[in-house]
């Protein structure tokens, strides 16, 4: 078998065993990712009934009608709007929190505990709490801040609440990754820089930050993935409202595919999202090679 010959210095038996151990995962991947993807890809060029019967060949018709769909186009705009606010804020806030608590001192355990706790809450529980906090003009948040916004009933504020929720959901994991990156940095480099006279901002921006850029780029791309694929928080918090202003691409997909049983939209969006993610992934891997 050719594939085994390519791996040097490993004997055949070990190879076979390795593949055997890989088999379950491979099988799952093929069964639940690759086969459905192939099915969606083929299906996106066909007209399929709700019950799954193929009714005819649609050519590019499904794609054309998708891009003529005003709700789909505005869901792209909504997702972009979310990403534009979420991504930089998320990066800045988690980086700032990790940077400020990166030196282990006596009481850092307290801040670490506080920053890591959001991880212990489930997404839907947090979303429901947010929904209550921001509900109506007599909301808790309005009482606390003295504002009188109808947060979830106005397009701008509703998006803001969604962004805040997103930040809250991603904060803990990103914080842990960045913090451990800061703490895992080789101390000798920092000490060497200090001996050379670097300190304060210079030390941070020229030595410490570059040494964690690998992890930082991972958190940025994870946040990007979360932003592009966001749907569950939307489902619980706003249901796409008010007036479909927080309806993201994946929530639109959920509505059309699962609520309405629209196979044309289901397959076309699935294919488009895979293509889009692949482009993103290839960008990441190119970047990673540079590092």
């Amino acid at each position, binding site marked *: 078998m050719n594939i085994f010959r390519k791996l040097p210095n490993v004997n055949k038996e070990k190879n076979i*065993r390795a593949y*055997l*151990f890989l*088999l*379950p995962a491979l*099988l*799952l991947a093929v*069964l639940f990712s690759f086969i459905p993807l192939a099915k969606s890809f083929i299906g996106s060029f066909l*007209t*399929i*009934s*709700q*019950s*799954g019967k193929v*009714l005819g060949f649609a050519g590019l018709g499904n794609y054309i*009608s998708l891009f003529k769909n005003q*709700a789909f186009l505005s869901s792209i705009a909504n997702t972009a709007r979310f990403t534009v606010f979420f991504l930089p804020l998320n990066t800045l806030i988690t980086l700032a929190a990790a940077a400020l608590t990166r030196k282990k001192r006596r009481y850092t355990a307290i801040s670490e505990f506080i920053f890591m706790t959001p991880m212990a809450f489930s997404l839907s529980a947090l979303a429901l709490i947010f929904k209550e906090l921001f*509900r*109506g*003009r*007599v909301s808790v948040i309005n009482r606390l801040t003295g504002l*009188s916004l*109808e947060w*979830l*009933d106005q397009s701008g504020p509703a998006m803001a609440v969604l962004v805040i929720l997103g930040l809250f959901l991603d904060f803990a994991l990103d914080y842990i990754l960045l913090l451990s990156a800061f703490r895992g940095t080789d101390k000798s480099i920092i000490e060497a820089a200090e001996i050379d006279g670097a300190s304060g901002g210079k030390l941070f921006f020229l030595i410490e930050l570059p040494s964690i850029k690998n992890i930082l780029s991972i958190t940025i791309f994870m946040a990007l993935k979360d932003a592009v694929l966001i749907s569950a928080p939307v489902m619980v918090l706003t249901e*796409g*409202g*008010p*007036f*479909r202003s927080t309806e993201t691409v994946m929530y639109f997909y959920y*509505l*059309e595919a*699962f*609520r*309405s*049983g*629209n*196979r*044309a939209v289901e397959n076309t969006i699935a294919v488009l999202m895979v293509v889009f993610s692949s482009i993103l992934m290839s960008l990441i891997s190119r970047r990673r090679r540079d590092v």
Partner: protein
Amino acid sequence: MKKLFSIMVMLILMFPILAGGNSEDESIVTIWHSNSGSIGTAFDEIVDNFNETVGKEKGIEIEAIYQGAANDVLTKVKAAAAANVSSLPDIAQLDATAALDMMNSDYLVLPETLGVDTSLVMESAIESLMSERGLLAVPFNASSLLFYYNKTLFDSLGLSAPETIDDFAAIAPLLGEKAADGTITRYAFAGVPTTYELGAFIGAQNGLSYFVNNENGHTGTPTKVLFEEEGTFAEFLVHWKNLYDTGYVSNITSGISTEFAAGRTATMLASSSNLSTVLNTVGDRFEVGTAFVPKTNDEATGGVNIGGGAMFAFTDNENVRTVLEYLISEGVQLEWAEKTGYMPVNTGLSDNDEYLAFLDSNPQFKVAMEQTEVSNPKLTGVWLPSAYQIYYSFQTEIRNVTEGGKPIDKAVHDMAAIVQQALDDYAEQNII
């Protein structure tokens, strides 16, 4: 030995893929339902009661599984049906948004096939589920749109509930309240009407009007939008804009009953099934009044349609029939109505002393029944594909007209185009 071990590990890991599928046991009747909170408790009691009495006698056990809101139940039913018809429950409680999909499905078992006796079920509830295939499901939790108002406030102003939208516009400035700096502290009305409310606002016009052809989809899958050429949506928008222009209508789409309970809006439109919850939330802050939904104009005499939910069956056996007949029996419907505020679907209750006494001591509940009695039974909820998306589109167009100053003709035209597109897509994907 090691090889054997790895094979075993592999098999164990694969097991979850191969396992699955449920055993068929006719003595257990599974119901997927959407009743939560106090309504859920009431439903569980009904189920427990069955299992201890009728069920025990006949060897039937109801297994009730809460599956989220009505549209979540529908999503799951459709997913189950797409995967494998045997994974469907025996019965699912669904609402009108499910009707079109159910009508065109091959796995639905009609009450007629089961032989369920529905002779005592009220006419408008039957009509609400009547399709070209016959009665689709057994009505269980019937409700209708209701006008809720702050009775304490109305009484203090010497006002009574408005009969038409124009009447409402005339009193709206009295109901509203402004602070010294011009911010509105109390609205006359909060909410943006959508498919459900328009069921009355459009449906009641000229005695009886439909959104789409085939009697709102009840005599066949709808293919054509009617509310544009018949001018019914435009007529509604003219009057509604008039009301909005008083400045005391708040275009919010969530948390409306919270605003109502907080006294920040004098009135709202909501399902009669919310009555118990609203009364509990308001408590003794003020007296809650209920009234007929204001008419779009003087000729809008059709009334309101029956909404709520019904029990759709997917298994054809004697036990399912027994359970369905139990659920619509007089005793169960009485208990259900008293605990939840749903309208009982069993007409046998119209001369039941216990029920009449209940209505007398709870006049707010009585209004819903009276409104239904004077409504045209042919006035039925609209069955549309992509119901959820259309729901939001209606709200968007109404807001465009009221807030954005969009010309009514254009809003109606755009809305009709959206619905027509949904109908065309559905027709293309489902050869009918």
